[in-house]
C-alpha cells in the first residue's frame, strides 16, 4: 500500500501501524507528533493506529525557532 508521508509517497510492504512506520525509519516516536488524515493521533495510540492505503500522514517535531 501507499501512504502519503509528509507530502511524499511511501510504499509499505504489508500491514503497518504508525509506530512500525516510524520505527522502521529510525524516527523516535517520543519526539514527534502525528496527524493522520487531518486528525491528531495521540502518542499513546501510535502502536494501535493502523495505516491504510491512501492515508495522508504528517509527522512533525520541534525545531529551533523564534
Amino acid at each position, binding site marked *: 500500500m501507499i501512504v502519503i508521508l*509528509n507530502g*511524499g509517497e511511501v510504499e509499505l510492504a504489508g500491514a503497518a501501524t504508525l509506530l512500525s512506520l516510524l520505527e522502521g525509519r*529510525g524516527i523516535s516516536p517520543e519526539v514527534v507528533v502525528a496527524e493522520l488524515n487531518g486528525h491528531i493521533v495521540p502518542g499513546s495510540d501510535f502502536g494501535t493506529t493502523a495505516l491504510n492505503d491512501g492515508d495522508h500522514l504528517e509527522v*512533525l*517535531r520541534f*525545531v529551533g*525557532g*523564534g
Partner: protein
Amino acid sequence: MTNDIFEIGGRKLTSRLFTGTGKYSDDGVIPDVCEASGSEVITVALRRVDLESSTGNVMDFIPKHMQLLPNTSGARTADEAVRIARLARAMGCGDWIKIEVISDNRYLLPDGYGTAKATEILAKEGFVVLPYINADLYVAKDLVNAGAAAVMPLGAPIGTNRGLMTREMIRILIEEIDLPVIVDAGIGRPSEACEAMEMGADACLVNTAIATANDPVLMAKAFGRAVKAGREAFLAGPGATKRHADASSPLTGFLGGL
C-alpha cells in the same frame, strides 16, 4: 525589586527576557544562553520530520525548568495557525502558543485579521495565546477581546536587528492596552531592549540578536542585564527632560574672588 513578578497564563516569571532557539550555529550553546540570560521562556517551531536525514533534537538542549513557547511560524492563515497550535500542544509541552500568521515573505509582517481569528479560537480551547502583531492599536484591541494573554508587537521586521523602529506605536500600546506588551522581533542590541523596558514594555523576546552574535552567551548575559536595567528604570520613574540647563549643583555659596 524582589516583588516585581511578571505573570502570564498563571505562571509567575522573574525574568522579563524571552529567548528563542532559532539560528544557532550550534544548538549545544542553548543551555549556556539560557543560564546567562536568566530567561524562563523559550520559543521553538514545529516542522515536518526530515525523512532523509536525522538531525539533533533541539528539545535536548532546553533546560527543563523553562516555559516552552511554541510558535506557529509557517502558518499563512488562521486555520493553519490553529492546526499548528493543536499539534504543538499534542506534543505534551503545555498550553502556551505564540501565534504567527504571515503570508508576506519579504518583510514577514503579521496578518492582524488572521492573528485575531486564530487567537479567538485557541483562547476558547484553553491555550495561553501570545500573538505576534504589528504595533497597531486596533489589532491589539481585537486581541484583548479575543482572549489573548499578551500582545507581542514587532520593533522591526523579524531577524533584522534594526531595533525599535515602531517605538511610538509601541508606546501607544503600552498606554492603551490592558495586557502585557512584549516587544518581539527586530531588537538587535541590548540598549534597544533596555529602551523598550524603560518605556514600560512588560518583556522583550530576543532570538536573532543573541543567536547570531559572535559570542551568544555573552550577548545573552548583556540582554538579561539590559532588560532588567530598563525595567528598574521604568519602575524608578525617570525625571523630566528640559530644554535648557538646570544646574545639578547649588547656584549659591561660591568661593569669593581672591
